[in-house]
């Protein structure tokens, strides 16, 4: 007797695409609720880092808005961690665990699988980021002065589309890697926190360094959000919010489109070179 009911209606086209997205995002969201200790560590650990940087600012007598910068930056690190470890290196892990070949031989589109990972990861991480901001703001008495709620939503949404698009794009590159994948992901933490201005206004890096760092969507997203939610934000911003929104739109389109083509190319390459099932520990 089969464990699963017979498939009465086979889906294809956009219906299959949508079902795959839902199917791949489901374990991301549900898995997080089932392993409660992860919720604790995912919120508690970033809060400790945030607290450490807040106390550094207080030790050197920084203006109170900088405390808010750290809290918001600390919350946004959750998204970067998610993109890095659960998007970029995900196909590498799937290969290590033997799931990747199953994805390839199923009728589900790989793009939908990546999108499902992104949607599920984004939702789960959003809950954690909200918790970090709420708890951090309460503990450190952060005051916000939102100048435009709609612009804030637009900036956040565009940042997430561009960021997860970047994650989908890099996932296909990581597919070709072996042990280097882990090391590369590990390397992209502190240096990215530095160049994207997670704990200080990115303007202070200087124009050209900040412009180069703007390739990472968090840089402009975070800068625009700080301009929109803190009283001193506009004076410390890198570019105007409108310009940053425009660049984020370009980054979103570029990364998502590039992800689609790169994934198809790398998948063909991996199949040709027989690297989909390799496991070089």
């Amino acid at each position, binding site marked *: 007797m089969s464990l699963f009911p017979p498939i009465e209606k086979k889906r294809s086209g956009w219906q299959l695409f949508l079902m795959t997205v839902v199917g791949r995002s489901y374990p991301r969201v549900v898995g997080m609720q089932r392993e409660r200790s992860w919720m604790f560590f995912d919120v508690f650990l970033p809060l400790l880092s945030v607290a450490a940087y807040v*106390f550094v600012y207080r*030790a*050197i007598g*920084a*203006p109170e808005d900088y405390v808010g910068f750290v809290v918001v930056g600390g919350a946004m690190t959750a998204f970067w961690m998610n993109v890095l470890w659960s998007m970029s290196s995900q196909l590498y892990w799937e290969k290590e665990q033997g799931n990747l070949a199953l994805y390839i031989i199923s009728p589900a589109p790989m793009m939908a699988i990546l999108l499902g990972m992104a949607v599920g990861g984004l939702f789960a991480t959003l809950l954690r980021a909200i918790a970090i901001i709420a708890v951090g703001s309460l503990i450190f008495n952060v005051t916000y002065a939102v100048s435009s709620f709609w612009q804030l939503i637009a900036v956040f949404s565009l940042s997430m589309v561009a960021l997860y698009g970047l994650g989908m794009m890099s996932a296909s590159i990581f597919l070709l890697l072996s042990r*280097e994948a882990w090391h590369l992901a590990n*390397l992209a933490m502190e240096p990215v926190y530095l160049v994207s201005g997670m*704990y200080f206004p990115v303007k202070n890096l200087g124009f050209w360094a900040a412009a180069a760092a703007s390739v990472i969507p968090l840089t402009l997203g975070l800068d625009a959000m700080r301009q929109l939610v803190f009283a001193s934000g506009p004076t410390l911003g890198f570019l105007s919010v409108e310009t940053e929104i425009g660049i984020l739109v370009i980054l979103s389109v570029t990364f998502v489109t590039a992800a689609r083509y790169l994934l198809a190319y790398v998948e063909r390459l991996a199949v040709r070179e027989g690297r989909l099932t390799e496991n070089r520990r």
Partner: protein
Amino acid sequence: MKGAPMQKSVNLRSFLTASWLGWQIESNWTDPFLFATYSIIKPVAGAAILVLMYSIVTQGNFDSPVFAYLYLGNAFYQYVPAVLTGVSWTIIDDREHYRTLKYIYTAPVNIPFYLFGRAVAKFIVGTFGVVITIAAGVLFLNVPLDWSRVDWPLFLVALFLGVLMLALSGLILAGITLMTARHSYYIGDVVAGGLFLFTGAIFPLEVLPNWLRPIGYLLPITYWLELIRRSLVGAVAEAFPTFTALSNGDLLLILAASSLVFGIASIFIFRYCDHQARERGLIDQTTNY
């Protein structure tokens, strides 16, 4: 009586072989140049975040004792996650990634010494990071380190005791790891990240709220970092009131005593966890999160 030299050789052999193995695992995924770059970028970026934060607020006043305090504390704190994770992550690495832990257990190997050996590679990589960070601070950021005035005996004794204390703490975490599933985080990094806030690594303990300070006073890492600062830049360390009542000898005594306590506790805790893991058949479990 013949057993003692044999035991010694097993311990030493376990340590040395594991050190070599750990180094191969850490470094042979790429060429030496890329590995050196990789080892340097992370710690330098971490230090640069603090430098920029400090520089933005103080308009680049790097001559203040506060800067030397946080810079050196941050530099040496790199040893904490390196050693804690080096010892404890080996359990997950061998049990779930390479799936060799059961073979290690069946070989004539002293497991704690093997774990210490596996941490050596991370200690060496951590040392690269510490040296590069301090060199950058001295060369470019006016960190007032005068080599002729460094109290080398105090520095070396404090460094040895501190690393020993960290390795023993790592053994406690390794014991706990033996009994737990693989999770998405590293227990060593979690603990190191948590202690970063309380040990006065990057700000004096006086900055913490009153009710949090006792945690810092209970942690040996706090005293270790203070001793390291005093041995390297005595004048800077004296500018902060946290431990002015304690002499270097007092601090060394506290560090030595706490290392002893950690040592005894780690042996018992690891033995207990090891026994439990064997009883429950966890030595070769694969949780694969």
